[in-house]
């Protein structure tokens, strides 16, 4: 990739604000997944898209300095979490991938429904972020 000198002040300044709002929205979509449209897949894609916006506004090196994460490991961690939460049902004598939920009185949040499906979703989320970022960064590094 040729280093071109462009003046992206407007793009970079807007990105600084917008990528945080996209991140926030992706977390919202992720958490809304149980009762509303959303979930781990679309949430992960939107998180990755906020990082892609960073990649568009800045160059690859800057983004790797901002996020010194090897995204292959992120995908691996996500898979591990998903497998562990699926296999966790064996501990209670249930079948593979059995999920349960319960109502808990959390401090501050009050009565909250906590489902183990969310843990599985976190795995999906991390896999999607990891895979998307790996694909885009690998293509971007090619000359």
């Amino acid at each position, binding site marked *: 990739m040729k280093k071109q000198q462009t003046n992206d002040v407007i793009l970079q300044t807007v990105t600084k604000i917008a990528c945080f709002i996209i*991140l926030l929205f992706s977390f919202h979509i992720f958490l809304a997944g149980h009762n509303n449209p959303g979930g781990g897949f679309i949430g992960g894609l939107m998180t990755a898209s906020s990082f892609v916006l960073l990649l568009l506004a800045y160059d690859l090196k800057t983004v790797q300095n*901002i996020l010194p994460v090897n995204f292959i490991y992120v995908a691996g961690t996500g898979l591990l979490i998903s497998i562990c939460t699926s296999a966790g049902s064996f501990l209670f004598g249930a079948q593979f991938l059995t999920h349960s939920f319960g109502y808990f009185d959390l401090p501050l949040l009050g009565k909250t429904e906590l489902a183990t499906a969310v843990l599985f979703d976190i795995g999906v989320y991390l896999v999607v972020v990891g895979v998307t970022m790996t694909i885009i960064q690998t293509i971007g590094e090619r000359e």
Partner: protein
Amino acid sequence: MALQILFNFILALCWMFLINDYSAVSFLSGYAIGLFSLFLLRRFFQQRFYLINIWAIIVLLFIFIKELLLANLAVLKTILSPTLKNKPGIFAFKTELTADWEITTLANLITLTPGTLVVDISDDRSTLYIHAVDIDDAEQAINDIRHSFEKAIKEVSR
């Protein structure tokens, strides 16, 4: 630091608008999520992640409380001793701090330490003149100040 806190507040407000729930709880959860995303992209900012500053302020607060207790105990010991053996005197302390609030905080903290009291600050704001109850261990007092207070204050403003 202030800019990051303000930004975190705005993110928390955005979160309240997103989940359409205008309560203190949703503000707090939005604040936590905004904090997480700020942490994720913390290298984006010129300053460091602001929770470290807040931690430094808490450390400074605890140093203040500890020194307050120790100072009062030291004064108690001096008052209750039957013979007056201390030798009062004034020594100079060269400080590396520059901002006004830093010097003020340092001066107030020195005043609260056992046996020392800030008398005056030089016009170029680089030297503090400190009155010590016992001038014999002034050298040690300088070292103590440099290592505890000055370091803690620098940690806050870095």
